[in-house]
């Protein structure tokens, strides 16, 4: 079947866009899921897909999906491979659909501030392209240097400037989606619509289960001319959290805000001693307005401290490899888990997760920061340092604790990393039976032959 599939696909996209040699498919054996990273480095365990196909336009994607349906071939869409939950975890029978060549910047409506791009555009490429013309997407996740637009949309991503600019759901204004049982659905960009279900919004976070994103219309902003950073320290994490709630209550939204617990503060800002660090920034086009806003923020936080603390983070914010390698040299691995919670239970969730996970053998540290703020609550991001010799044994136990504690205390099991492979089995903590039934039915409608990633609990 696979041979026939490859032959037919080759007639559509050319054999040069089909990779079967081991050295080339090796590149698609994992995304940035730490569990598989450490599996490979510690145990030389790798899962190879059978083949990689790399279409160059959306009609080729449509044809590939049609042929895959005909021969019942499993397809795994792959964009930048920056996901951290094993969303592309390949089956040896599966075919990876590499969307990297769908990397056009096709249309830019400067009057409406909307840009049309392919799913294979690397976020930083798009941002640089816009910056040269005085615009910005202001979607700045840590994976910015390697994440692609298609992957960001399909995992419902969020950036570091979310408090001011929102998540990806706020900037997607239209989508093209190849849905296996239906075809190519095109939703054109409009500022808002009220026409039954918002189809494009339904596919933000669809993670390659329901369809394949082949084109996106994104909102852009003017690149701000001024940015002012600020910082504020408190003795305790919870005091800083309370201060941030005060900002939300008064509808004063910094464009970026981050609060570190005491343990991350001592790690990133050892010079300030024991305490909790809050950093943030405001951006805009009028210095007087920004200074007035800063003054009000200062009033609500009871004083501001050095701007330098913000810039220190800003300049090195994506240099993850520094930390990861440093840990590795010291015999440690890492894992990060983000959840969301209401203001009323966020500190409780934080305390219990810390307490329970630190009891696990091999978990050396459990720390957190809050970096996405809403009127009703926030996204909280846990980081764990785990001894390498215990890493693979303790990994899923750690996840069990974080998921169950969060869910039992009323939080959401995922804030922005999505579901991937790891969270699939925790979906029943998020949705009730009827909710899961709905997700399953939608999957059947979109992907009758079940050729895309499976929906399994």
């Amino acid at each position: 079947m696979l041979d026939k599939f490859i032959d037919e696909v080759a007639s559509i996209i050319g054999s040069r866009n089909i990779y079967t040699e081991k050295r080339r498919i090796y590149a698609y054996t994992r995304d940035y899921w730490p569990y598989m990273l450490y599996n490979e480095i510690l145990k030389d365990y790798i899962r190879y897909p059978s083949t990689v196909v790399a279409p160059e336009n959306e009609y080729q994607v449509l044809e590939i999906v049609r042929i895959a349906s005909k021969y019942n071939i499993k397809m795994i869409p792959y964009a930048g491979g920056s996901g951290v939950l094993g969303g592309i975890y390949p089956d040896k029978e599966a075919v990876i659909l590499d969307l990297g060549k769908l990397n056009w910047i096709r249309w830019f409506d400067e009057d409406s501030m909307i840009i049309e791009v392919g799913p294979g555009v690397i976020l930083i490429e798009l941002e640089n392209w816009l910056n040269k013309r005085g615009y910005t997407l202001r979607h700045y996740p840590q994976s910015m240097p390697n994440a692609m637009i298609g992957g960001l949309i399909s995992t419902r991503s969020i950036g570091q400037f979310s408090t001011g600019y929102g998540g990806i759901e706020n900037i997607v204004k239209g989508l093209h989606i190849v849905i296996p049982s239906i075809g190519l659905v095109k939703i054109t960009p409009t500022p808002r619509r009220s026409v039954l279900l918002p189809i494009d919004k339904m596919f933000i976070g669809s993670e390659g289960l329901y369809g394949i994103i082949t084109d996106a219309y994104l909102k852009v902003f003017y690149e701000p001319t001024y940015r002012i950073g600020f910082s504020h320290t408190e003795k305790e994490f919870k005091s800083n959290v309370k201060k941030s709630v005060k900002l939300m209550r008064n509808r004063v939204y910094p464009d970026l805000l981050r609060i570190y617990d005491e343990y991350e503060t001592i790690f990133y800002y050892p010079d300030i001693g024991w305490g909790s660090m809050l950093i943030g920034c405001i951006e805009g086009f009028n210095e007087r307005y920004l200074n007035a806003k800063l003054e009000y923020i200062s009033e609500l936080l009871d004083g501001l401290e050095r701007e330098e603390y913000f810039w220190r983070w800003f300049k090195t914010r994506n240099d993850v490899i520094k930390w990861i390698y440093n840990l590795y040299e010291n015999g440690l691995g890492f894992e990060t888990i983000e959840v969301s919670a209401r203001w009323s239970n966020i500190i409780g969730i934080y305390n219990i997760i810390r307490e329970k996970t630190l009891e696990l053998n091999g978990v050396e540290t459990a720390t957190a920061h809050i970096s996405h703020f809403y009127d009703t609550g926030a996204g909280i991001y846990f980081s764990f340092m785990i001894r390498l010799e215990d890493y693979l044994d303790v990994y899923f136990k750690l996840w069990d604790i974080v998921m169950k504690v969060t869910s039992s205390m009323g939080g959401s099991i995922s804030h922005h990393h999505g579901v991937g492979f790891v969270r699939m089995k925790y979906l029943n903590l998020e949705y009730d039976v009827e909710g899961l039934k709905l997700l399953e039915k939608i999957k059947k409608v979109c992907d009758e032959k079940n050729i895309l990633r499976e929906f399994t609990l």
Partner: protein
Amino acid sequence: MDLEKVFEKCFLCPGLCISKCPIYSITRDRSTAPNIIGRSGYRLIKYGDMEIGRNLLECTGCMRCMRNCPIENPLPEAIRLGRRLIFGGDEYIGEKPSISLGDKLYIYTPREKDENIMEVIEGYGYKVEWINTLKDYIRYSMGIIERYIFNKPFLTDDIEMLTNYGDYIDSLSDIYRKLMEDVETNLNYILHIPCRLDRVKDEVSKLLEDVLGKPIKIIDECTGGGLLYPKYNLNYAKMILANNFKDIHNMVVTLCYHAREFLRDNGIESYTIIDLIGGV
């Protein structure tokens, strides 16, 4: 250099440099992305995996990954040394140059003479001469090599081997005479430095400015990769060209033979330095 450590860093990295790689930006094939090449190098060193190790051959050695790496991991150098493991061992998996033993080979590179490399090549039974002066480097730019003296590249990074060089050497003085004559014409020059020559950008542009007696504009985006790798996405290479050269109405001088062809295909008057001086 501890190769395993260098490759290990790339192994652990999500690929913060991939958008800066001129080859990946053209091919969009992840086996050509720098972090994957690093991962492949790790497998080559740790497990002797020659098959995946072949990914090391995809690199042009432009060093942009290293310059954009938060820890300045010297991946290009590690790749160069890693390749020697592939090429220098008993099991030779690269394409052998079609030259005869005993031929005199000329390695042209801006690098300092590297006795280790000399030794490896001499091990194959060739005589070797190392050329690294700037003037010679320009003379042996890709235009000349392709048209007059070049047989086949041996290694794909900064080491090139030249054959049948003797016929050419006598005409070098003519090249410079003709170049100086051409300075009399009233053209604005744009110098395109292809990725593999990035390291000598400042030196080359200054020399050309001195020779031409007028300022030149430098473009250092890779435009040739699409042709070096014609099996990949040519449309994307064309898009890079269109973006970089669309506002240029004057003549473009390029050190890259492939870029010249592409520019001409896109209706932009373009020459290699050798074209400019009327050939030899």
